[in-house]
């Protein structure tokens, strides 16, 4: 494979370097450009702190999924099950909350005498459901050597189906309202919504883990050259198991945040979340071929659709245009990724 004798000196480095560096800068430029354009068009209706907080709250659930997806894609994997796991986790959490917060009679009258137990138990159950789904993905991929695409597609069906069986196919009602007032719609210090705080913490921890620890280093190494990682003594299977477990856990957390924001576990609102998360990650410069990616890129890649949607809504443009725009940006991002990869392979 690498036997090709190289005639070139180090002259190719410059071009490749520019090409590799172009992705993140270009994407960040697009985000800044969007903000500038919407500010010019909409003025302070768009450019004000409150609106930015709104955008961030709207983006928080997807951002949690995108963070987990970043790790997965850097290992050259994929997780199609994130949206379904989100739904399953929020249904499980909601049902545990409803069951433990009072008698059937009480909760139907919106009285939750034991919600002090019910809410934490529900949150724990939802997170556990997400973690177990992720572990299941990781187990099948590493032990049974099945392709991630197929395994997580299967998990998507199983998780979504289970959620619908549990909920009877409808949104879970009578969820304690405290989860919305105390978490979903609560502003800390008068300006920091709890969902944003949760997401911010996750992003910071994920950034540190990916770029500063051996966990992140192994994630890159596995995606870059899995044989080299194995020969270096990295336990590839165990690491991949952890990465898919992380993605599952963060999907569970996203399910809790979603439940807290809307006070109900909705079974039908997340059908496209997996593709949205993958798009965000890829737009952010993470390579589908593995070995390359950043958390900051995924944050930017999540905000581009969020800003577009927000700007279009303020302006009264049909939100469907946002989908068109995102599709175009995604294709551009993948194009850059492929150019970069083929530049590498010409070595």
């Amino acid at each position, binding site marked *: 494979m690498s036997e090709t*004798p190289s005639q070139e000196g*180090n002259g190719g480095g410059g071009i490749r370097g520019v090409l590799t560096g172009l992705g993140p800068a270009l994407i960040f430029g697009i985000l800044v450009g969007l903000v500038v354009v919407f500010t010019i068009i909409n003025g302070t209706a768009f450019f004000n702190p409150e609106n930015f907080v709104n955008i961030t709250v709207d983006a928080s659930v997807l951002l949690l999924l995108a963070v987990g997806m970043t790790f997965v894609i850097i290992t050259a994997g994929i997780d199609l099950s994130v949206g379904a796991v989100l739904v399953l986790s929020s249904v499980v959490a909601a049902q545990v909350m409803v069951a433990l917060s009072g008698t059937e009679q009480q909760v139907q009258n919106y009285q939750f005498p034991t919600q002090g137990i019910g809410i934490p138990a529900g949150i724990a159950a939802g997170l556990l459901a997400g973690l177990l789904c992720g572990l299941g993905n990781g187990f099948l991929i590493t032990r049974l050597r099945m392709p991630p695409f197929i395994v997580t597609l299967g998990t998507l069906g199983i998780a979504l189906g289970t959620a619908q069986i549990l909920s009877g196919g409808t949104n879970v009602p009578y969820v304690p309202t405290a989860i919305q007032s105390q978490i979903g719609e609560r502003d800390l210090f008068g300006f920091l919504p709890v969902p944003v705080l949760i997401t911010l913490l996750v992003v910071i921890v994920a950034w540190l883990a990916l770029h500063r620890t051996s966990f992140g280093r192994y994630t890159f190494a596995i995606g870059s050259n899995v044989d080299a990682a194995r020969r270096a003594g990295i336990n590839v299977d165990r690491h991949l198991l952890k990465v898919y477990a992380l993605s599952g856990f963060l999907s569970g957390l996203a399910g809790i945040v979603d439940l807290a924001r809307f006070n109900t576990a909705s079974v039908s609102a997340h059908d496209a979340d997996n593709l949205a998360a993958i798009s965000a990650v890829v737009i952010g410069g993470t390579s589908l071929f593995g070995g390359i990616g950043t958390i900051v890129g995924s944050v930017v890649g999540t905000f581009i659709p969020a800003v577009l949607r927000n700007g279009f809504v303020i302006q009264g443009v049909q939100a469907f245009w946002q989908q068109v725009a995102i599709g175009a940006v995604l294709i551009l991002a993948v194009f850059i990724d492929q150019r970069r990869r083929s530049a590498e392979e010409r070595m």
Partner: protein
Amino acid sequence: MEKARDLPGGEPVLRARGIDKSFGAVRVLESVDFEVRPGEVVALIGDNGAGKSTLINVLTGVLRPDSGEIFFEEKRVRFATPHEARERGIETVYQDLAVAPQLDAVSNIFLGREHRRAGILGRLGFLDGGRMRRETEDQLTDLRVRLSSLEKPLSTLSGGQRQGVAVARAVMWASKVVIMDEPTAALGVAQVEMVLDLIRRVRDTGIPVVFISHNMPHVFEVADRISVLRLGEMVAELDPATATTDDAVAAMTGSASGNGEAA
């Protein structure tokens, strides 16, 4: 050179006996014996497909032999993974290099052996990048190896520069044996000299080197002993002081024996 060859060889550090290896119906190694003694450079030569890389893979735990025994420092070993061989001080530059192209030189050199920070951060897995970088620089200076950049992803370096990283990594960590599968294949003249010189200096510290190459001048320049593989069999052992390139080529191709079994 003479001096090295006259060293009291001692017991072989690494020895393979009666190695058989087939891929499906294809017999790639047939009762191969091979040994590496302290302080020697042993060249392993043979035509394309002779089984050189396969033998190396068997020796270093990448592949399991179908039968045969491997001894390390006189003790029977069965390396289940390449990592086990590395832990015993056997370092290998694989023909495919086994580097992570998206990582930089320091990350590749320390892959799987990262230094962590002191204290609680270290236990959380935080890396000590500064220390790894410093140690890499120090070691490379000691080894007189020049790498163009320690910080750029290897994919942005030339093929030869990447090979340099793989060679440096092996030499840095080896304490018992260094195995190099065509380490000079993509190198320019100056870099080849650097690697050959490095091989000699490693040998002079007492660590034996297994050197695989198709380039006969290089082989004769550094080897203390030459083992020849042909079609999976160890067919000759040559002394570079007395043998000629023609002898080596004849042994590799089988033309000397004239029995035409090369078909």
